């Protein structure tokens, strides 16, 4: 079995005249955190959406564990084991934190069409959900409706839900955003441990986190990957420093 | 051939009437995002006000002014007393509230004006038929309605897409709280918009009521048709409502005119009449379902 879990080849997507992704080729390997960085509007989120199937690419293919998944809809891809987090928290506002997380467990575990047994009494859902809430630092907030969570708490919930899907690959779109300094620190530890469980494609603007976590970094600029390499290589890349990091030195 | 061209004209004309009836609703529903079932009641109110004032003074122009002002005033009142408290709530509670308003308006109108239809007839300057180029006779007043419809369409489109007021209204629909936090008095803005929508409903009531009948309950069929038009066009799009109104008008007119004879080719006349007419009544709903299944966001609606 090859080490490449997710293989993206020549993805293209245009919005009118704008090429949001322009021939992106990229892979994600077992056990790694592959960070994807790039300026705002470079096409990172668009790339994630093409991997999850929310947006259909104009050209190129995505394969997951050796199988082309271009024909599958988002739900089918999620069931194969592709979990994503959203750049803007996407939660069910009237559900409690626990119910939100249960939803993720339910989606991953299947058995949606069961009509009679109360879900809240279903240990198969609640136990894993509680576990992942705890992991994301929300154990004390499980009964709070998601609409009453603060921004940072919602970001944590987003993480809990991604974890609860127990996927075979993570696609995380700016998980650090809004977490606060403390949250970012905690999350760095969580993600670092997680890569053993499933590889992570990490889109992030928090360079401290990226440099601390990434095994490999790819830089996406206006739809094209301009560089891929180790933390040191990317840090030293003058073009990255100029266009992205904005450092003169 | 003559018949067909007359029917096409009828269809376009009917479409314009529909647009006029839907115009106020586009503003309130499409742009403000409020499901106002009482739109038909405001339409009725405009017709009653016009009939009453025109009857008392003998002047159709005064009647029109009365319909505009009565409907606008009623709209503003309704917005301040009822609607305003519901923006923050579930859309469905707006449905219930405006349903209650229908009852109040309808029976209130019956209480004030009685149970019998009112007299409202064309001003003499606009009555009778004119000869169109090509030898077609056409009622003058219907041409006037077309004119008003076009004017309202253009005016509304400019208001919504070109003025700052329009931008603010749309922004308010997207995020009320945020618009207010940027310094826009959204409450007053919405009262004004609602009153404007109501005034347009009242104007339509007066104009269309003139060639139809002015009576309690006249607003109900209008309500559904107006919603059909807006939804086919795509919510929030004036252009969409305009195109959809013409499309619905044409479909309805040509369906009614042609279907029975089409069926008569394959079956006996009276059966063909029955089926043709039944299908004719369904036609605009078939059109709507078809359009929405093909384009779930309507012809010109933004994809959500």
């Amino acid at each position, binding site marked *: 079995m090859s080490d490449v879990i997710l293989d993206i080849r020549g993805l293209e997507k245009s919005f009118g005249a704008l090429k949001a992704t322009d021939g992106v080729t990229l892979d994600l390997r077992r056990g790694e955190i592959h960070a994807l960085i790039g300026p705002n*509007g470079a096409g990172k989120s668009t790339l994630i959406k093409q991997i999850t199937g929310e947006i259909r690419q104009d050209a190129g293919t995505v394969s997951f564990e050796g199988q082309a998944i271009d024909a599958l809809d988002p739900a089918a891809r999620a069931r194969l084991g592709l979990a994503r987090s959203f750049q803007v928290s996407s939660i069910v506002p009237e559900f409690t934190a626990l119910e939100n997380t249960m939803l993720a467990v339910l989606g991953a575990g299947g058995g949606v069409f069961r009509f009679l047994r109360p879900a809240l009494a279903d240990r198969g859902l609640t136990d894993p959900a509680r576990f992942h809430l705890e992991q994301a630092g929300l154990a004390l907030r499980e009964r709070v409706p998601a609409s009453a969570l603060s921004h940072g708490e919602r970001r944590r919930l987003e993480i809990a839900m991604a974890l609860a899907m127990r996927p075979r690959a993570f696609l995380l779109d700016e998980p650090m955003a809004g977490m606060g300094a403390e949250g970012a620190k905690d999350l760095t530890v969580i993600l670092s441990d997680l890569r053993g469980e499933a590889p992570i494609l990490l889109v992030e603007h928090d360079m401290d986190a990226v440099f601390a976590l990434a095994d490999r970094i790819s830089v996406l600029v206006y739809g094209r990957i301009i560089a891929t390499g180790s933390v040191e290589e990317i840090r030293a890349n003058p073009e990255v420093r100029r266009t992205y990091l*904005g450092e003169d030195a | 051939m003559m018949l067909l061209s007359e029917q096409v004209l009828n269809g376009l004309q009917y479409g314009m009437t529909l647009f006029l009836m839907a115009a106020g609703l586009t503003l309130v529903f499409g742009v403000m995002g409020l499901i106002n079932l009482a739109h038909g009641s405001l339409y009725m109110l405009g017709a009653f006000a016009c009939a009453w004032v025109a009857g008392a003074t003998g002047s159709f122009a005064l009647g029109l002014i009365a319909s505009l002002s009565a409907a606008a005033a009623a709209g503003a009142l309704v917005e301040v007393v009822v609607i305003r408290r519901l923006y923050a709530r579930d859309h469905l509670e707006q449905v219930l509230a405006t349903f209650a308003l229908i009852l109040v308006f309808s029976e209130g109108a019956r209480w004030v004006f009685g149970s019998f239809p009112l007299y409202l007839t064309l001003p003499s300057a606009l009555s009778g038929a004119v000869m169109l180029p090509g030898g077609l006779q056409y009622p003058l007043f219907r041409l006037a309605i077309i004119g008003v419809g076009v004017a309202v369409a253009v005016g509304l489109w400019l208001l919504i897409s070109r003025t700052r007021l329009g*931008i603010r209204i749309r922004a308010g629909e*997207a995020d009320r709280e945020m618009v207010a936090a940027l310094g826009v008095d959204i409450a007053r803005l919405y009262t004004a918009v609602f009153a404007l929508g109501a005034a347009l409903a009242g104007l339509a009531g007066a104009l269309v009521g003139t060639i139809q009948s002015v009576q309690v309950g006249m607003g109900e069929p209008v309500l559904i048709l107006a919603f059909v038009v807006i939804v086919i066009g795509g919510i929030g799009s004036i252009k969409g409502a305009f195109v959809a109104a013409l499309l619905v008008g044409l479909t309805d007119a040509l369906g009614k005119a042609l279907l029975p004879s089409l069926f008569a080719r394959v079956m006996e006349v009276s059966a063909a009449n029955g089926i043709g007419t039944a299908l004719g009544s369904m036609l605009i709903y078939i059109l709507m379902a078809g359009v929405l299944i093909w384009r779930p966001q309507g012809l010109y609606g933004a994809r959500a």
Partner: protein
Amino acid sequence: MSRLLELEAVTAAYGPVQALFGVGLGVDEAEVVALMGRNGMGKTTTVRTICRMMPATGGRIVFAGVDLLRLPSHRAAQLGIGLVPEGRRTFAPLTVAENLAVAARPGAWDLGRVTALFPRLGERLGQTARTLSGGEQQMLAIARALMTNPRLLILDEATEGLAPSVRHEIWAAIRALKQQGLSILLIDKSLKEISAVADRAVILERGETVWSGAMADVTTQIADRHLGV
């Protein structure tokens, strides 16, 4: 220096759930104040009460000598409070240009100046906000607040989701705005950047002001205790 904004013992609640238990803070003319605290401690709630997006249940809020406590939201904005809200809240169906036009009030900031600050927005004036990238939306939110030409600019995590280079630009812009005499109330997670620009800091914990003082006095010990870093 005169006080522009003053909060005293402000309390506020979301329905039955109290969120603020006594917040006090002050912002002077041409001063930058940082509002800090862990997730869920009441920073955003404080900002929302200042902007009158939610009612305060007690205390005092005075802006430019006017008691804000009973004023509607749009009055507060008209008095000169400009908000970049948490989560951007750009008007999704409107174009970039329209987003900017909604709020525009006469003053030094106009379309030309904000697009000079964020050239990317200038390129996308006709695009609807819904389709902007996250960072672009953030720029738009800041530009929109500037278009109101506020006396006090409130930034609630305004650099979230921005690429490092843009973030540098925004911090530079904040410094420039400060130079021009604008008062700023600032929430952000980057202690390093805040330290460089803020004059004073106020720290919240469970809806209460637990510390306030000069930025320079925020020691590692204080940061560790109240912010977890």
